[in-house]
């Protein structure tokens, strides 16, 4: 019995030893397993990071690349997306089933691709049109972002018309065309003469500006400050241009019947109103760019406009505008030069008896438009003839510089 007990003890010892070895082996296996899992997790994290990066950086292509690259970009993004698919029961267990008709998805994708390619084609056309404008004229021209093809076409046409009328004065200009999207400015075109020294200052102002209104304010301040600084005469002129699609000239003409510019009034259709308003802005910029001669010309216009007013009231002047045959005050090519100053008064009938005033700056811009667009409806008006002569002289004079 004693012998048996001793044997049993020995056996127990052996078992204990075996258990120890087994525990150790299990621990080692556990360590190996845990190491493997860690390595797998590291590889998976690296893989995800790589594929995500590929996907994101390829998506950038859609913002700037030519359409030839879109197909390759689609291919890369699709491949990265497929490879990002989490595989394995555990990964799938966390997902809901997504059932989607492949035929419907294909149709959607086809539409998206067509749309992106169509947009790219339009973008190509816009770039070509932008380059065409810049190459056509031997001078500094900066055209901002977001212009549509149609708007650039109108701009191109306007520049051609202005250049034909006053090539010398036009060639002296350095120009920035800036599209604004400010509802507060509505359909306004705004010209800021002598506003910016160059692209770097423009960028600086853009960076400093907290929003579009702030940008315009800064440009306006620059323009006003530079006006009196003779060292800064050779700056860029900025013309702010609104969205063409926001413009409804028929409504403008209807709602402000006395607010007639050449670009809007006396028209059967408003098809060229956008282009013609750009031309009107050149009627400001070209004269103001030549400050000394401009002052002389403005004086002459003031005197001619005094002859037109001759103590008349606003209402008397506006009678001419309401006259369907005339649609303009006598002595003027449009009503704008008078309504620009008297609009508020004209609407307040009690003050309609005030003495009418002319805005010679607008008067010059309107005569400029009249000449540039080849109109002749006011040619028999002696004062208009005088105004045309004064402007012609100015446009044919050599620059002061």
């Amino acid at each position, binding site marked *: 019995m004693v012998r048996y007990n001793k044997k049993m003890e020995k056996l127990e010892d052996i078992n204990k030893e075996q258990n120890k070895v087994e525990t150790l082996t299990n621990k080692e296996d556990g360590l190996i397993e845990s190491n*493997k899992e860690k390595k797998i997790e590291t590889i998976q994290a690296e*893989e995800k990071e790589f594929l995500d990066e590929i996907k994101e950086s390829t998506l950038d292509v859609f913002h700037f690349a030519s359409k030839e690259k879109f197909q390759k970009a689609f291919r890369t*993004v*699709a*491949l990265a*997306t497929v490879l990002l698919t989490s595989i394995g029961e555990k990964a799938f267990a966390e997902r809901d089933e997504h059932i989607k008709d492949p035929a419907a*998805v*294909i149709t959607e994708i086809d539409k998206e691709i067509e749309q992106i390619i169509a947009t790219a084609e339009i973008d190509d056309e816009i770039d070509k049109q932008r380059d065409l404008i810049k190459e056509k004229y031997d001078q500094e021209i900066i055209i901002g972002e977001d212009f549509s093809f149609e708007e650039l076409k109108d701009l191109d046409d306007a520049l051609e018309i202005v250049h034909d009328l006053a090539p010398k004065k036009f060639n002296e200009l350095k120009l920035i065309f800036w599209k604004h999207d400010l509802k507060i400015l509505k359909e306004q075109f705004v010209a800021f003469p002598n506003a910016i020294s160059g692209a770097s200052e423009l960028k600086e102002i853009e960076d400093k500006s907290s929003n579009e209104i702030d940008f315009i304010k800064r440009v306006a301040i620059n323009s006003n400050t530079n006006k009196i600084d003779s060292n800064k005469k050779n700056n860029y002129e900025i013309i702010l241009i609104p969205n063409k699609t926001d413009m409804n000239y028929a409504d403008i003409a209807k709602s402000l019947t006395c607010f007639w510019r050449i670009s809007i009034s006396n028209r059967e259709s408003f098809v060229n109103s956008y282009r013609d308003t750009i031309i009107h802005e050149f009627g400001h910029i070209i004269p103001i760019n030549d400050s000394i001669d401009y002052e002389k010309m403005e004086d002459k216009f003031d005197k001619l406009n005094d002859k037109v007013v001759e103590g008349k009231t606003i209402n008397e002047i506006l009678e001419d505008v309401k006259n369907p045959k005339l649609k303009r005050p006598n002595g003027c090519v449009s009503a704008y030069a008078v309504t620009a100053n008297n609009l508020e008064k004209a609407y307040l009938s009690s003050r309609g008896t005030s003495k009418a005033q002319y805005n010679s700056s607008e008067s010059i811009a309107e005569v400029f438009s009249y000449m540039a667009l080849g109109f002749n409806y006011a040619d028999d008006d002696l004062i208009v003839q005088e105004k045309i002569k004064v402007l012609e002289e100015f446009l044919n004079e050599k620059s002061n510089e």
Partner: protein
Amino acid sequence: MNKIKLENFLDDIEINPEVKEFWARIAYKLSPEEIEAFIILKKYNPQDLIKAIDILMRREKALLEKDFQALKKILKKEKDILRDLIFEVKIG
């Protein structure tokens, strides 16, 4: 939509039954974005689709077997393919 359509998505591509079985297993677990990506590849670059499914299958096997060496090789292959592609997109 019926299940058959998505299941039969790969029917017109010459691939072995193992791949089709794999597809049938994952198809209804995919997100809409992933399905779109599969469809784009099938429509425009079917060879990429075959390569991609092969990678996914190998990844699944490597994960089951906890074979990190195989996973490393898969990652290297992915990097080779995609780096070539992105070079073409960005520079080529």
